[in-house]
């Protein structure tokens, strides 16, 4: 395939070389035609002048008239010149023109020889003419030229009356000698012409090769130029977009030279500084910043200028710029070096952070409010548990009160009253009545019986009163525990973790007991910890309450909550609260701590959310684990033993 292409290319180049050669030949012929178009008329004039000079008049005795040579020069010379001149002017470059010119030129030689009376010196015109004809670089025209010379000499010898032609003397074939000399010159001219044409051919081939190379180069140049144009177009579009982006950017963007002078800035920067680009261009960027900002800017420029170029290196600082009215504007300055070229150029992106700072302040305030709400929610959860447990105890109180009420209402006091009434009725004859009356006979026994019953009732009522008192004490305990946490701040203090956990169990104890939930608590021996008592209790109470609800819904008789407190590393502890409750669906594990999320109808979704927030505040982690619905759950509360070392963290779980 490649060889075929090369062959085609070589053929095309050969054709082009041929074309160039022909064009060159044509150009040479035309130049020679123009030369002879001048030379032939000059020769004609020279012939006329020679005729007038040599033989102006012919004489007959004393009489004279214009010599026929003058007319010959004028008319025959004009005739000889006419057609070559016409052809050279009108049909320049053709082979026929060349041949006609060659014939005409040699005829002019012959005419001149005639007019000079055959002077041998005039014959040199023949050789000069042949040399001139060689200008055509076409050896073929030497043939008619030579033929004309030979014919001229031959015919002159043949037709002149006293010619030596045919006479065998010393020089009868002189014309042949002359023609031989012409052929001698022809030989050299032909060699010279051939050599010249070979050189023309070489030139044509070289030029064809050069053109082919040039075409290839031009094609490459066009291709590259087109590609470059496309790239430039894309670059301009990209530049336009970039410029529009920069102009539309909300941040102020400036370019700064190595001396800290402003080179350009976008519209946002103009608005930010309250000054136009034309005013700022060339001025020091220091003018845009307040006192601290200048130092920051200069330090940033120095840092970027002195360090090796790194395209990703940037200096980011929060500082302030000075508006045109002098008021400061908090900004974030992002300075980077544009290129590695020296001197360096920097690009500064100035972001107005006034709103961000205001938002941060508002956020901080909201966070505080949120924490307070969370704290209150947590407290509300505890209060709910407390109230729930108090309610449970109150149920026992009510039962006891009902029993007492029933006992009181059904006591033998009425029977005793009726016996007393009978005795009152028979006050005067009590003995007779008891002795003789049938009813009276049964009265002592009835009174004994009533007494026994009253004693029994009293004993039962006393038992109920004891239980009632106990329950009231229980309520008192619950309320006391709760009261002990109400109003407490989140201050970190040294506490016994076991006591806290027991309090949490106690708060839920009534409910746990009523629902027959078995709580198993095991713990490592841990030193007192520095935690927020309030926060810790809220976390544990909420998680425990959650576990209680979970086991209540497990549909089994066995309801169990395992609480395990373990030391975790040197400075942390880990509290696991495991239950065999209804478990947590996998899709709910990620949102179990979300605000408002609950699976209970009566739940409100605050408890675990509050617990998670509090855990985060404590620098602790609260996580939930479950193997799925019906497979129980495990909540892990990992917390530092010294919360005073923990930074305050703000956030929601």
């Amino acid at each position: 395939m490649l060889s075929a292409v090369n062959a085609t290319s070589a053929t095309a180049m050969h054709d082009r070389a041929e074309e160039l050669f022909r064009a060159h030949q044509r150009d040479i012929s035309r130049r020679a035609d123009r030369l002879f178009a001048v030379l032939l008329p000059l020769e004609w004039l020279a012939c006329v002048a020679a005729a007038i000079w040599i033989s102006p008049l012919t004489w007959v005795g004393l009489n004279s008239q214009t010599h026929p040579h003058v007319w010959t020069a004028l008319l025959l010379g004009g005739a000889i010149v006419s057609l070559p001149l016409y052809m050279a002017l009108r049909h320049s470059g053709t082979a026929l023109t060349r041949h006609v010119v060659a014939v005409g030129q040699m005829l002019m030689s012959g005419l001149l020889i005639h007019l000079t009376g055959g002077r041998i010196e005039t014959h040199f015109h023949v050789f000069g003419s042949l040399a001139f004809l060689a200008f055509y670089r076409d050896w073929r025209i030497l043939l008619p030229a030579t033929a004309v010379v030979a014919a001229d000499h031959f015919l002159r010898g043949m037709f002149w009356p006293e010619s030596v032609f045919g006479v065998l003397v010393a020089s009868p074939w002189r014309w042949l000698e002359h023609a031989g000399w012409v052929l001698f010159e022809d030989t050299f001219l032909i060699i010279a012409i051939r050599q010249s044409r070979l050189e023309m051919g070489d030139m044509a081939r070289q030029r064809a090769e050069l053109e082919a190379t040039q075409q290839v180069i031009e094609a490459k140049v066009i291709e590259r130029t087109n590609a470059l144009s496309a790239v430039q177009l894309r670059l301009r579009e990209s530049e336009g977009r970039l410029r529009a982006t920069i102009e539309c950017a909300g941040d102020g963007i400036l370019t700064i030279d190595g001396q800290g002078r402003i080179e350009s800035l976008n519209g946002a920067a103009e608005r930010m500084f309250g000054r136009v680009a034309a005013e700022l261009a060339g001025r020091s960027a220091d003018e845009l910043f307040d006192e601290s900002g200048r130092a920051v800017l200069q330090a940033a420029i120095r840092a970027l200028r002195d360090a090796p170029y790194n395209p990703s290196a940037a200096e980011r600082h929060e500082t302030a710029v000075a508006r045109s009215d002098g008021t400061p504007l908090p900004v974030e300055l992002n300075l980077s070096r544009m290129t590695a070229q020296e001197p360096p150029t920097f690009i500064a992106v100035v972001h107005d952070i006034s709103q961000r700072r205001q938002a941060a302040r508002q956020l901080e305030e909201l966070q505080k409010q949120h924490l307070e709400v969370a704290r209150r929610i947590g407290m509300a959860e505890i209060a709910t548990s407390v109230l729930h447990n108090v309610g449970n105890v109150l149920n026992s109180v009510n039962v006891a009160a009902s029993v007492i009420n029933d006992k009181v209402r059904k006591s033998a006091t009425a029977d005793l009253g009726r016996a007393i009434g009978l005795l009152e009725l028979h006050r005067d004859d009590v003995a007779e009545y008891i002795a003789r009356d049938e009813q009276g006979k049964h009265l002592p026994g009835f009174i004994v019986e009533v007494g026994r019953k009253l004693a029994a009732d009293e004993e039962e009522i006393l038992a109920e009163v004891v239980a009632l008192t106990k329950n009231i004490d229980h309520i008192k305990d619950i309320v006391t525990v709760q009261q002990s946490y109400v109003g407490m701040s989140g201050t970190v203090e040294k506490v016994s973790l076991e006591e806290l956990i027991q309090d949490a169990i106690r708060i839920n104890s009534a409910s746990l007991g009523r629902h027959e939930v078995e709580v198993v608590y095991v713990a490592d021996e841990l030193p007192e910890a520095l935690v927020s008592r309030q926060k810790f209790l809220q976390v544990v109470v909420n998680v425990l309450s959650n576990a209680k609800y979970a086991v209540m819904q497990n549909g089994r008789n066995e309801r169990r909550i395992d609480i395990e407190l373990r030391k975790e590393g040197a400075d942390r502890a880990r509290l696991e609260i495991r239950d065999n409750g209804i478990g947590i669906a996998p899709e709910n594990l990620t949102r179990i701590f979300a605000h408002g999320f609950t699976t209970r109808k009566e739940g409100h979704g605050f408890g675990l959310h509050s617990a998670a927030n509090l855990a985060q505040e404590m620098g602790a982690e609260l996580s939930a684990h479950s193997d799925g619905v019906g497979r129980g759950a495990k909540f892990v509360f990992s917390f530092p033993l010294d919360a005073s070392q923990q930074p305050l963290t703000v956030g929601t779980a």
Partner: protein
Amino acid sequence: MIELKGTHAATGSADTGLTQPVAPRVALTPRVALLAAWLAALAAGYAAISRFEGTPGAQRAAPAIWPSASELPRDSTRPTLLMFVHPRCPCTAASLQVLTEILNRKSDECSALILVVSPPGADESFAAESLSHIAAELPSADVRPDADGAEAVRFGAATSGQSLAYSADGRLLFAGGITPARGQQGESASATALAAALLSGRADAAGRRAFGCPLFDESSSCLEQPCSRQ
């Protein structure tokens, strides 16, 4: 130049049923016609000039014996060569050139006399320039004026360039022109014959013609006998 313009109009062939091309017709283009006209004009021109150059001058018989009436000195020791020239005829130059060639080769074999003929009626100035010029050109020759062409008439010379050679004893060896054509230099049969006659001493029998200007008007009465200068 002929241009062939072939046409391939179909002509049916009854024998073969094949379509055969019509033979191409030859058409003369204007350029070819122009070329032909040019060549014809040149031929006519050359014919005219050839006719002029090839036409001999008037020919009169030269005396077979040196005329006794002649006042010209005849060399009794070697042949005497005479040439009569018209003083203003351009053709004279060619004759003198040929004569010079001969004299250069045969200067010791003859004595040359060149007679510059003043036609009857001409004054002395007519030939003066020519005399001095020829004398300068041919120092070995005796150049003399021939007033009224008296000697020319005696020797039968009517055309410029007419040359005569007489032997030492006065016999005519050669008579005629020595140029190949009118006004043309170069080798000629007559010049060769003259040289041979001078060398051999034998008379050239061929009638040689002279090509040049007539020395006298056709109507001149001096052609028959020398006119005497008035």
